[in-house]
């Protein structure tokens, strides 16, 4: 009796396993990945030419052993160090340019003009010049990184400053803020959604530029970065390692985008209800 009643009373019926699985986008994407990997493995085996196209298994193996031997971590660290220096230097110059643009009208004109001119110019195209001016080495890498970061950050920060509401500005001045205190306590946080956008646009530019630049001449100091690792292994026809290197580049890109920036966004603009 009781059993029968219970079966009739059930109003909430769990979805079938299939319904639940197919409703989850992360699961769907994982399934796609597995499918692609499977396809890769099968195709590579059929091709049977590790010089052109190593199997998925061989790539994973190369990736694993390169991590275990410490080669990939070391190269990655090297790349990230250069990136951090270039990114920081880019932010520094962006701050100067933005300050000038915010303070004067001619500064605004200058920023808009420079951005319009240099933003379409791929950073890597500046590499020959950078090598000529700064010499082989990290200096010229940092030079092109600055170019990759500077314009998007400066332009977005400036736009952000300009969009800070008149009311907030008046509030800041009302409580006696002016000069650097006003910028730090009112303008920067109020413009932070724009600044973050600039940082997010600048980051992949910088990352791509760095890897590309390293491919061209990363060896200058004996220990190159990831780009050089890829280039080196291609020369030695260790194609599985080339794949492993590219794999690392992708992984870091995903990590910064989906973990680092996503966390910053969640803790700041989204928490403040300021998302643009």
């Amino acid at each position, binding site marked *: 009796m009781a059993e029968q009643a219970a079966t009739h009373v059930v109003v909430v019926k769990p979805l079938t396993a299939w319904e639940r699985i197919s409703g989850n986008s992360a699961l769907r994407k994982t399934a796609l990945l597995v499918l692609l990997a499977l396809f890769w493995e099968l195709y590579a085996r059929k091709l049977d030419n590790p010089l052109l196209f190593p199997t998925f298994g061989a790539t994973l193996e190369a990736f694993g052993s390169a991590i275990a031997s410490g080669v990939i971590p070391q190269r990655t660290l090297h790349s990230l160090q250069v990136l951090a220096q270039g990114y920081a230097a880019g932010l520094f110059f962006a701050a100067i340019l933005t300050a000038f643009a915010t303070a004067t009208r001619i500064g605004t004109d200058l920023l808009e003009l420079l951005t319009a001119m240099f933003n379409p110019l791929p950073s890597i195209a500046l590499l020959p010049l950078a090598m000529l001016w700064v010499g082989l080495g990290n200096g010229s890498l940092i030079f092109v990184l600055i170019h990759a970061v500077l314009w998007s950050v400066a332009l977005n920060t400036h736009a952000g400053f300009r969009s800070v*509401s008149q*009311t*907030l500005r*008046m*509030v*800041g*001045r*009302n*409580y*006696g*803020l002016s000069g650097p*205190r006003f910028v730090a*306590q*009112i303008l920067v*946080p*109020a413009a*932070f959604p724009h600044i973050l956008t600039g940082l997010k646009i600048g980051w992949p530019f910088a990352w791509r530029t760095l890897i590309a630049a390293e491919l061209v001449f990363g060896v200058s100091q004996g220990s190159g970065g990831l780009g050089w690792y890829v280039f080196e292994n291609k020369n030695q026809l260790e194609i599985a390692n080339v794949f492993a290197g590219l794999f690392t580049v992708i992984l870091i890109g995903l990590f910064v985008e989906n973990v680092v920036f996503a966390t910053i966004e969640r803790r*700041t603009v989204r*928490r*403040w*209800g*300021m998302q643009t």
Partner: protein
Amino acid sequence: MADPAAERAPALLEVRGVTLQYKTREHLVTATYRVGFEVSRSDRFVMLGPSGCGKSTLLKAVGGYLAPVEGEIRLNGRVIDKPGPDRVMVFQEFDQLLPWKTVKENVVFALRASGKLKGRAADEKALATIEKVGLTKFADTLPHQLSGGMKQRVAIARAMAVEPDILLMDEPFAALDALTRRKMQEELLRLWEDTRFTVLFVTHSIPEAVRVGNRILLLSPHPGQVKAEMQSSGRDEERLSQRIHEMLFSEKVEEATDG
């Protein structure tokens, strides 16, 4: 009408023959023309007038955001030349709160930035003021999670916390719904009973002016000029409203014949 016989305490705020102009993209607009009045300590002084009478511009000038082209504005005898925490503004706009700071942090910010209090003392003062406006439960809430009325209360708390010589309120309740608006007016009066702060209040609503103010300055538009000054005793609100109505109405007739 102003009662010249009435003995007042020496004026806290003196506005003398103030002409204000501002530029739009195409015009130079004269917002007020030779406006004068005095506000005494603990006054609830309301500037009332239709749009275009320069009341908000006048308030901004008292705030120090705009310099008069003629005349002068003095607070405690000193000419106002820049914004400062001795005259705190409460705006109509909800975005006057810093969205990246909680309710408490917003008040603490005001205390620290203005140099009134620091550290623990600022925290305590902030919490005490927040309690006065009944928002203790929301001290750690961010502004975007508050209703419009609550945001305005935070703005008022923030302004009161720094204990300015005069509170400048620019249609602070205009963007609220009628019920909340009414409640906020009563709350403002209750807060005033508490500490008897001086407030200069701008509105275009006659009922609000009559309810909130003890003195009402009636301004006429284009350019803003003083039309009359009245006392509001809190009684006979009906009759006072009626009189103000008539004056504003006659203004419209004059305008029509002028044009």
